């Protein structure tokens, strides 16, 4: 015991790499209902990702396959059976395979859309927030103008402009992704701009200015790295909205053709007529897939949002009057000296995630 505490005196405690990873850190931090929400969301999202990655292995048929290996057609609007566990669509596709392949399409669209909008939005936000002046004003006005459009309408216009009505796999995915990007750039832009404006007046940025650091160095070394805190949150929240936008595009017929890729919104559109004639399986499964994925990603986003805010974060109750008093001295302006010397304070400085019980 003596040796370990002596070690702790020399090296300040640091969390292991695993504990500092974004998601793992939040799971360990959360308690009660918040943990339940987060874990549910994570499980749904993980299933979604696994299905998307391994779609070729999971799906029994291809997304555009109309007949089996024996050359016989699947038949249209077949009810669920051992061959087609979720039945077939009006176009004669296997519903189960379409839903599985649809996960892949959705995942690629989300990734492309988010990557594009993060890069553009973050860069513009940083420049706009830190430099200010007329660039800032112009960019803010443009973003406000984009906000004023109904997002789906804008996405439709963009998809027409980009794809020109053609529909290859990547062409379609890119068109969908870029039209979503245009809608979401303003969100990233706003968040990063607000952070940059706040950080601009922090003492450490002024200190870098006084030292004589160049504008580029201040922007990327000091402002950028401190303004990305909230990105994972918008990222997850936007991902779920991106799925809805994609499904909406598909539903309205501006998505990807059934022969290029599978798309839940398109399948839903084709299932409209089926619903009234009692054919439930063509609409239920794609719809369920959309709802579940959006729910899962939203749960992750919302719980991370709550956990990031100390005021919303739930904590375990402490045993009555437990804990060590010396710990508090690490707050700014705390005493410079402590009983047993300064060193005895410092091991407590490293944040211990589970140290709810009394530290000896």
């Amino acid at each position, binding site marked *: 015991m003596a040796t370990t505490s002596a070690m702790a005196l020399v090296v300040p405690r640091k969390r292991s790499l695993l504990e500092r990873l974004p998601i793992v850190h939040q799971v360990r931090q959360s308690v009660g209902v918040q943990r339940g929400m987060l874990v549910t969301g994570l499980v749904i999202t993980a299933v979604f990702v696994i299905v998307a990655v391994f779609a070729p292995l999971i799906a029994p048929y291809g997304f555009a396959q109309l007949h089996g290996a024996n050359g016989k057609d699947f038949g249209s609007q077949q009810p669920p059976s051992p061959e087609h566990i979720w039945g077939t669509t009006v176009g004669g596709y296997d519903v189960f395979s379409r839903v599985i392949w649809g996960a892949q399409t959705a995942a690629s669209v989300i990734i492309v859309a988010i990557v594009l909008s993060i890069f553009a939005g973050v860069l513009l936000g940083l420049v706009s927030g830190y430099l200010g002046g007329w660039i800032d004003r112009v960019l803010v006005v443009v973003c406000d103008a984009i906000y004023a459009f109904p997002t789906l309408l804008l996405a439709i216009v963009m998809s027409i402009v980009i794809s020109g009505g053609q529909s290859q796999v990547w062409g379609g995915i890119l068109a969908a992704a870029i039209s979503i990007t245009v809608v979401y750039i303003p969100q990233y832009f706003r968040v990063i701009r607000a952070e940059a404006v706040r950080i601009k007046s922090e003492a450490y940025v002024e200190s870098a200015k006084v030292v004589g650091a160049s504008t580029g160095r201040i922007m990327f070394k000091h402002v950028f790295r401190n303004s990305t805190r909230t990105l994972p949150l918008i990222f997850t929240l936007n991902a779920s909205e991106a799925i809805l936008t994609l499904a909406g595009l598909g539903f309205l017929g501006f998505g990807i053709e059934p022969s290029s890729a599978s798309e839940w919104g398109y399948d839903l559109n084709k299932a409209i007529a089926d619903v009234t004639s009692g054919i439930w399986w063509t609409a239920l499964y794609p719809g369920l897939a959309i709802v579940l994925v959006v729910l899962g990603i939203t749960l992750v986003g919302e719980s991370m949002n709550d956990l990031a805010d100390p005021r919303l974060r739930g904590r375990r109750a402490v045993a009555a009057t437990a804990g060590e008093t010396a*710990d508090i001295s690490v707050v700014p302006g705390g005493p410079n000296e402590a009983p047993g010397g300064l060193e005895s304070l410092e091991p407590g400085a490293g944040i211990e995630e589970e140290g709810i019980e009394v530290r000896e």
Partner: protein
Amino acid sequence: MNATNPAQKPTAHDKHTSHRGTGDTVRIDGLSVSFSTDAGAVKAVDGVSLHVGAGEVLAIVGESGSGKTVTARTILGLLPETATSSGAVFLNTDRGEVDVVTLTNKQLRQVRGPDVAMVFQEPSTALNPVFKVGWQIAEGLRAHGKISKKDARTQAIDILRKVGIPDPETRVDYYPHQFSGGQKQRIVIAMALVLGPKLIVADEPTTALDVTVQAEILELLRRCRVEFGSSIVLITHNMGVVADLADRVAVMYNGQLVEQADVSSLFANPQNDYTKRLLAAVPRIGGGTVEAVERARVRPKGWAESEPVVKASGLRIQYPGRLGRAGFVAVDGVDFEIRPGEVLGLVGESGSGKTTIGRSIAGLTRVTGGSLKVLGHEMNGVSERSFRGSRDQLGFVFQDPASSFNPLLTIAQCVAEPFIVHGRASNAADARAAVDELLEAVQLPKSFGDRYPHELSGGQRQRASLARAIALKPPLLIADEPTSALDVSVQQRVLEVFADLQRDFGFACLFISHDLAVVDIVADRIAVMHLGRLVEEGAGEQVLEAPQDAYTRRLLASLPVPDPIEQAKRREALQELVASEG
């Protein structure tokens, strides 16, 4: 859950009432409070027992994190949800003694106001900006019994008059922003007094105020006791305020009560080691004069004629106003010089323009008129590009130790920044040897270089900030309130380090502070600012002992000294001074 009469409710308190008289307004027995935090359980208060007699002023003093505020908030049951407490807080109310710790929310509401009230630290946030002050005072009255609008208004006007708001009949309909900071604090006190509580808990009531306003608020609190018969629990870190107002003092350290004594014996004869050190750390006027005279003696001949590193003449700084409005003139026609190796202390209250001057020297704020020469550059109309080359000759220490370091970089990386920017090192590892030397110069262990800023205490961070400022051995340093956010004992340490560095490196310095006593310790010359103008400037002993300007005299007289007998005399002197000014 029937809300019975709180007086009959607690079972624990019956056994206590027997052995103590009921004369005490509040009696705290073995109180412990713990908080649940991300870093685990933290004990803020550890077995504190206190009592406050009727009409008594008890000061709870201690540094940040000592648990003084938590102790006081427990009296009102104002702890956050993350707290758990044990022990008892007996409050003497009209309905007999109640134990606040065991009360339900509804019972707490009955106690707050008529029995115990609170005065907060920051008057501008304690008042709701969208309601008239009269309404806010009446809100307390309406919460405790039916009262007509007219009666409430009459009472509000009455109480405003009693706390010294001029023309209360009109002012009762003003909004908070129409009052000055000191007046707002008077209104907060009026809100506390209107229900005639037996006990007022004042949490750092003067910390956010300027020293001249502080003197007025202390005078008002003293009157509260005489005219309203309230007991006061005064929480403060300022020993001068304690000496001015308190009857009895309780010293807290790390959640424990280390000493309790009446005010004159505590200051004259402190028993506990910590109390002794705390009192010794309080800066006193006249403490630095000897060193300043000594420094002046050893200066070489011809120093007075040497080229000043900073020379301001007719300096005027105006902040741009909104469209159609004139800008705000922060600094108006200021002249001063700082010669090599000299420390100029710049003193003034908030809004006097002292920080603006410091920032303009560093090129952070634009000079709009007159002339400001820094290291041979004319700052009026200077471009950042042409001044950047000279930035290695200038260091800056910021006020807030919490935000002066990039939280994502280690201390070593932060301190190495000047070396990298000016091409003296290619990366942080390259500069590490120099950084280690600097950390030792500010008395921090080398290993602290590997820590992140949040792993250092405020004082340590401020010393690291000093290390960064002197990294390139600049001939000029600007220190903007470097110790204002620190506790007295930490402040003392930082000031010592500063004095050592100044002696070893010999830089010239503009030392900005609102505290005359702090400036006196480090400065060779003192300049006093008031409303954007320099009202007095001269050698330290000259300004402090024979001030010429009326404002300087008032500033000096308002500063409470940590000695109750001396302070009583100063208080009278101040009242005479104010009376003579009219």
